[in-house]
């Protein structure tokens, strides 16, 4: 139990230690926050007054053709070029090994010419098999949720609105199956994308692409409905449209990213933890903050009630989370509840949750209490980019290196890798589109080419080598690596983590108890995803932007008013 008063006497609250935060189970309990990338993007669009137009809309009666969305920002123009295709049911798969999709997209830097659109038309539908240029910065594709898509088209063609229950049950008209950036397939390299001035934060171009795809899907169903029944068709009313996000299927491809980019992961985590610490450190909560929190808590109860999943593990967690939220809501019925009016209310809440609640609850509350404090939190969204050039100290002695390992990797040194369970899994790249996969070491071939996700094992082996080496402990790292360059990765990793404490996941990713789904959830929460719906322990469906205002609705008030959306039940408004 953390005692708020003692923290107060000692000055600012410390951040939660990496040993607490950087655990798979906790990372697999993260939720969207104010500084998640979707949230910060919508704030930016609203604050900077970005303008969306649709200069090209050439779809046939069935909705196949080309649409162009132009986004004007103070830093310049970017454009989403969307292609809608006919797809046979047996060709529709969300796996990365698919070759055809219902719709394909490219986000261009600037305005494409007619020739550019022709070029894109010849390449974008092929996705990985095509070739784009450095004028494009994102490549993506999406498949329809056939049942909901047809249902909504049918309803609109009859002049009806679909039932909100049906809309929310699925939550999207299309789901993306890949969103590529950073130089892949000819796309602009990241320095060019950032150099355009249009995008300043991690995955911002990708998040904009998905947001525009959402606009496209809504335009598409309305167009098809109007084509079927020109005189009778209606458009989606705003609440129904807002209830539609974009689905996404995410597999293991996302998992190695967090391990391969420790300094970036550190930036994301420390921004989140700093945001949390700033709020926990509030000695008192002003009435307007308390009111907003109580409304959010009620909304969270409704939101979780609408979070459905067939996955037994996640369903159990959601059910428990709902129970815990209801219990908490009963204890905090209004903004004048005793807990909220005492000193350090948010720290008390966090302490209570840590002692009595699940990690799902703890992390949902951590997201919740940030919501009333945009003035403390939102600026941290600008601190989540990292140049990723960690320094290296070749003069460090081997004794110092050992001490670093002991300081930052005691969790790794305690693992017994002689036990088969400790090396149960290996991660590998399949020859099929280089899809990352997870194999069982004792049963499957390919372990000799495993990917470097076994950081704990690697660092432990380095530690053993340093212990047994005949080199003097006062010898330097540079000389050590001249002899044994095999340790270069591990040595650099240890030195990097010394300055980036949140850069390492403090669990054994090779262990039999490793759940890759936790890695996916962590990263997706930073994107701003909600309603995680695991389909196995290796891939999940999510919803993006569900409940978010549409582009034309964005303003300073709406841009942040879509946290924890509720659609079926009563949704407490976040703004008076």
């Amino acid at each position, binding site marked *: 139990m953390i005692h708020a008063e003692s923290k107060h006497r000692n000055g600012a609250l410390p951040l939660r230690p990496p040993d607490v935060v950087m655990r798979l189970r906790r990372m697999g309990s993260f939720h969207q926050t104010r500084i998640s990338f979707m949230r910060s993007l919508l704030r930016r669009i609203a604050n900077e007054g970005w303008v969306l137009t649709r200069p090209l809309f050439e779809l046939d009666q069935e909705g196949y053709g080309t649409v162009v969305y132009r986004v004007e920002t103070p830093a310049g123009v970017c454009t989403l070029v969307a292609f809608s295709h006919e797809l046979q049911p047996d060709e529709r798969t969300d796996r990365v090994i698919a070759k055809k999709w219902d719709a394909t997209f490219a986000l261009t830097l600037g305005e494409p010419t007619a020739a550019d659109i022709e070029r894109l038309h010849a390449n974008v539908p092929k996705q990985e098999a095509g070739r784009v240029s450095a004028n494009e910065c994102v490549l993506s594709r999406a498949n329809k949720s056939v049942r909901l898509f047809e249902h909504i088209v049918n309803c609109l063609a009859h002049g009806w609105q679909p039932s909100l229950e049906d809309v929310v049950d699925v939550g999207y008209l299309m789901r993306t199956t890949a969103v590529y950036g950073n130089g892949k397939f000819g796309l602009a390299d990241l320095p060019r994308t950032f150099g355009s001035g249009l995008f300043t934060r991690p995955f911002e171009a990708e998040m904009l692409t998905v947001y525009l795809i959402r606009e496209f899907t809504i335009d598409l169903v309305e167009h098809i409905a109007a084509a079927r029944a020109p005189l009778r068709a209606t458009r989606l009313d705003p609440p129904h449209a807002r209830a539609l996000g974009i689905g996404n299927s995410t597999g293991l491809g996302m998992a190695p990213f967090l391990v391969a980019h420790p300094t970036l992961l550190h930036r994301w985590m420390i921004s989140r933890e700093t945001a949390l610490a700033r709020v926990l450190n509030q000695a008192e909560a002003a009435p307007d903050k308390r009111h907003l929190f109580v409304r959010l808590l009620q909304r969270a109860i409704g939101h979780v009630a609408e979070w459905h999943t067939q996955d037994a593990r996640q369903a159990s967690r959601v059910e428990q989370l709902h129970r815990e939220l209801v219990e908490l809501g009963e204890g905090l019925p209004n903004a004048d509840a005793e807990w909220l009016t005492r000193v350090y209310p948010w720290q008390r809440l966090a302490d209570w949750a840590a002692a009595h609640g699940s990690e799902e609850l703890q992390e949902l509350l951590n997201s919740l209490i940030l919501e009333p404090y945009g003035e403390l939190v939102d600026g941290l969204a600008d601190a989540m980019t990292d140049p990723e050039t960690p320094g290296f100290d070749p003069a460090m002695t081997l004794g110092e290196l050992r001490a670093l390992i002991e300081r930052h990797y005691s969790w790794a040194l305690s693992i017994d890798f002689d036990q088969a369970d400790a090396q149960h899994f290996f991660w590998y790249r399949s020859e099929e589109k280089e899809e990352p996969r997870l194999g069982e070491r004792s049963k499957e071939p390919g372990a000799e080419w495993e990917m470097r996700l076994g950081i704990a094992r690697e660092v432990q082996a380095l530690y053993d080598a340093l212990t047994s080496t005949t080199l003097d402990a006062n010898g330097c790292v540079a000389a050590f*690596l001249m002899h044994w360059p095999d340790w270069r990765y591990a040595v650099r990793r240890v030195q990097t983590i010394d300055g980036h404490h949140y850069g390492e996941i403090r669990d054994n990713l090779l262990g039999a108890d490793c759940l*890759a789904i936790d890695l996916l959830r962590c990263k997706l929460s930073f994107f701003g995803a909600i309603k995680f719906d695991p389909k196995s322990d290796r891939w999940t469906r999510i919803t993006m932007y569900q409940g978010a205002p549409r582009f034309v609705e964005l303003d300073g008030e709406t841009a942040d008013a879509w946290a924890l959306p509720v659609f079926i039940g009563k949704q407490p408004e976040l703004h008076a």
Partner: protein
Amino acid sequence: MRRTLNEVYRQCQKAAEGAGVPAGLDIEVAQATAWLVARGLPAFDSLIQGLGRASDRQAFCFSEVASGDPLNATNKEGALIAPALVDLVVANAGETVGRLAVGSLCAALYLLPAAARYASDGWCFHFELLGAGGVAFQLQVEPDAGVSIAATRDGDVTALEGISGLDVQACCTRSIDALPNRDESSTTILADAASLAEVEAKTLGNGVEVESETWDLLTTFALKVLVPATEESRQRGAGGA
């Protein structure tokens, strides 16, 4: 075919890993290759030569490092040892000037990206390269001024990639004033920071032209890191669909 820098990096990293280049070094070699080609400097031939010998540890390992004596780089691959050489110069610097003599080095251009990594931390480097027949080059890396390449007589940067057996005097310091001065009367700048930056900007817009033969050679190495797919791996390995 034109390739983006990220494609170059990824292909080179996989190729290096597939060739048997140690973990971490494969990443740095790939980053160095992308750094060089982004600036229009030759790199692929040196890399492919290095990868071809990567199964022989003598190509990138030093058995002993005696202070004061020149390191003998005979039969070592410059693309693979450049990071370690630059590390050693920096480690030798302490609070003053780090020096290192290396004999018989090839692929000396790979010293540049290795040094540039340290330049962002404030380190300055000067490399004197002396080849057979008196051909000499100077490489300089400074935190603010960037990279420059000079030669004492007719020569071009492309030729530098193919020269082996270079004797190298390397020094680094955090004080630019402590670096040797370039003798402007006897050297010609082959590439300076401005011209390299200009090329890099163009590369970001247009990519890098990579000959298919080069790409295919890299692919030969890179394919080794990919595990053959089976229906079982399709279902189990990725969690099914």
